[in-house]
């Protein structure tokens, strides 16, 4: 880290994201394309860079090839500082054996050597699979002002939603007094965003003690927060008010893409003061032929459109043949849609091929999914 830096960010990008079904069969969830030009982890990486954080460790484990190639040396986000930058942390072996990561906190523990090298005062732990814009500096200021040992980012949710989240019950000073995982009867509306600021020496002490005594703190939600509360560590909730989406399911991923399409989306992707960057690629401009018809849609570089696109997102290198109709869908990079096909309420994976006259039709409640490289309805010649 640079001499003036006091906070190291660790992005947990190792999860399989099995609720995304076929989409994460051959890639990690944070590498899933979003919004035509992005991958999910771009939001977290850009937030780090925009928050002035120079040193970021990305912990990966599951199918990391695409994610690692995407992250590269971090230069796409300005995270290629000589004294910092992005480091990808993957399982390895040592004289103590093979080090796979069993849970969020365990992943931190297994990479303690890297964190010690950076020697941070504060450790910012982030997920790689949320869509939001957030200035982590403000959260750090809050953490310092509260003299907290741990600060947890929280977002208000409805009572109904609260049943699916880890909920933080706080006193009037915002100190967390109770943590409930997916409560049947929520006592607060503060859902954990999976964003934590720890005083690193304290967390380090808890982790090393627990793993040397077999009381393993494997997961932040399940183990670490309860232990912090039990030990009366000063633990505070930091409320975030902006746009935030967990895109961990097919439906939420589709939903967030459709929200992204709205020019009035409060995510405000066009804001020049908080750019979301992605891996830079040079591709030819999009080509719209004489038979194309595009409405309420987003299209990017190197798309070829001969058909009708309605309220949909086409990612890079997508091709849609004449007579085809794409409605309320998100098409991932490199997918090819033939002629006179119908794609409706669908997520189409990277490099998928939809043949002429094929129909992929989902509903709002049951989004159709075509997997990466899947070939559908192509007639054999």
């Amino acid at each position, binding site marked *: 880290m640079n001499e003036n830096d006091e906070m190291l960010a660790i992005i947990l990008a190792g999860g399989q994201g099995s609720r995304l079904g076929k989409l994460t069969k051959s890639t990690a969830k944070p590498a899933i394309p979003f919004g035509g030009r992005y991958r999910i982890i771009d939001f977290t990486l850009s937030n780090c860079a925009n928050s002035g954080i120079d040193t970021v460790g990305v912990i990966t484990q599951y199918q990391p090839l695409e994610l690692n190639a995407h992250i590269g040396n971090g230069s796409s986000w300005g995270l290629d500082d000589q004294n910092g930058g992005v480091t990808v942390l993957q399982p390895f072996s040592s004289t103590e054996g093979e080090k796979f990561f069993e849970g969020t906190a365990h992943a931190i523990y297994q990479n303690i050597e890297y964190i010690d090298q950076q020697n941070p005062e504060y450790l910012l732990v982030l997920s790689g699979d949320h869509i939001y814009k957030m200035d982590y500096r403000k959260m750090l200021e809050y953490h310092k002002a509260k003299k907290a040992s741990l600060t947890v980012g929280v977002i208000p949710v409805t009572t109904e939603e609260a049943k699916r989240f880890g909920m933080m019950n706080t006193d009037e000073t915002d100190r967390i007094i109770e943590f409930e995982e997916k409560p049947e009867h929520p006592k607060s509306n503060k859902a954990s965003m999976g964003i934590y600021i720890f005083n690193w020496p304290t967390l380090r002490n808890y982790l090393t003690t627990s793993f040397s005594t077999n009381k393993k703190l494997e997961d932040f939600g399940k183990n670490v927060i309860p232990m912090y509360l039990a030990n009366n560590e000063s633990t505070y909730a930091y409320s975030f008010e902006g746009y935030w989406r967990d895109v961990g399911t097919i439906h939420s991923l589709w939903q967030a893409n459709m929200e992204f399409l709205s020019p009035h989306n409060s995510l405000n992707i066009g804001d020049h003061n908080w750019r979301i960057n992605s891996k830079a690629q040079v591709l*030819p*401009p999009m080509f719209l032929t004489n038979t194309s018809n595009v409405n309420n849609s987003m299209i990017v570089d190197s798309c070829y459109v001969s058909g009708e696109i309605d309220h949909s997102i086409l990612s890079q290198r997508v091709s849609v043949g004449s007579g085809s109709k794409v409605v309320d869908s998100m098409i991932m990079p490199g997918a090819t849609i033939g002629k006179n096909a119908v794609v409706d309420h669908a997520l189409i994976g990277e490099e998928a091929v939809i043949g002429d006259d094929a129909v992929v039709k989902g509903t709002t409640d049951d989004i159709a999914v075509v997997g990466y490289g899947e070939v559908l309805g192509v007639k054999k010649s």
Partner: protein
Amino acid sequence: MKHNTVSAIINLVEPWESLEPLTTERPVGTLPFGGRYRLIDFPLSSIANAGIRNVMITSPRSGRSVSDHLRSGNDWNLDTIRGGLFNFPYNDLSLVSPEKRDNLIHHYYDNTILFLKRSNSEYSVIMGTRNICNIDLSALLRYHQERDNPVTTVYKSIEADDIEPDTTVLQVTDNGMATAIVPASNTNVSPTDNGKLAKSLNIYLMSTVDLIDILKEANMRGDLISLERLMLQAVIQHNANAFEYTGFYANIHDIKSYYDASMSVLSEDNFRALFYSQRRIYTKVKNEIPTFFAKSSQVKGSLCGTGGYIEGKIDHSVIFRNVFINRNTEIADSVIMQGTRIGAGTTIENAVIDKNVVIGPNLKLKGTPDNPLVIGKGKRIFRQTEVTND
């Protein structure tokens, strides 16, 4: 000297007067083209695709547009320790005052010679930017190595009827050697049996040692002539192998030729030939958001860059990055460059609108295919009287 390695020189000192106002503030080489490129991207990409890593750019003036676009050369793979991009400005001799020429004589070729020596390369290729092509320089090198002449130059076969009299063609012998490069109007040059002429692409390949000799001799003679003229002399003096290029080609020498070249890329065949060959075209990387097409938009037969917001009707046009087209506009057969905004209800036809222009609402901008209307960079137009339509 390493076996088979090639260094490249891109000469940006090219005639620009007939392209005004598009070239008032930039050399021809940084003229935007094809929705997101600049002309220099085409030779630079050919160079990158051939694995050439040592490149020198000779710029006419200080040219902020050149260094802004090229930066470290990273976008063309040119900033590794195995080579580099060297930008030498102030090579336009017409700008040197007569009393300073004497002092300059012994310095003028020094940068180039030093670059060539440091490059440690066996061959050098010299290119301009006003002939758009996507050439395989590895094939050119192989062609050169298989033949005896010290210089190889490149041409495109063009119908004699299609050629403009002020462009240059190779004078080719029966055994395929170029003995001179002359204006097409030159009476010594006659079309081949099938009525074609060999249009010069202004690309020259030779051994680096020979090129250094040519530069040193010019230096000793005290000639302050341009690199391009030096190459023409080399062809006359040494004879040259004539290599035929067969891919997409366009020559940019005035407003109409720029406009025609832009429109020609809207043909799907040309678009694919230029941009989807095995040899990719690289340019400066930009992180733009997707282009949004509103419900009211109607876009047909057009190229669009990213970052745009389109509400109006666009037909057969090239739209660059970050363009804002308001509702009820009608744009046809036009080029709209980066950052330009078109007001609601405005009609634009056969026009070239440069970067960062603002056109107000309910105006009519109309050129003709033979005489396209041009609006210069950064102009703000809010009254019909500010435009002279054809």
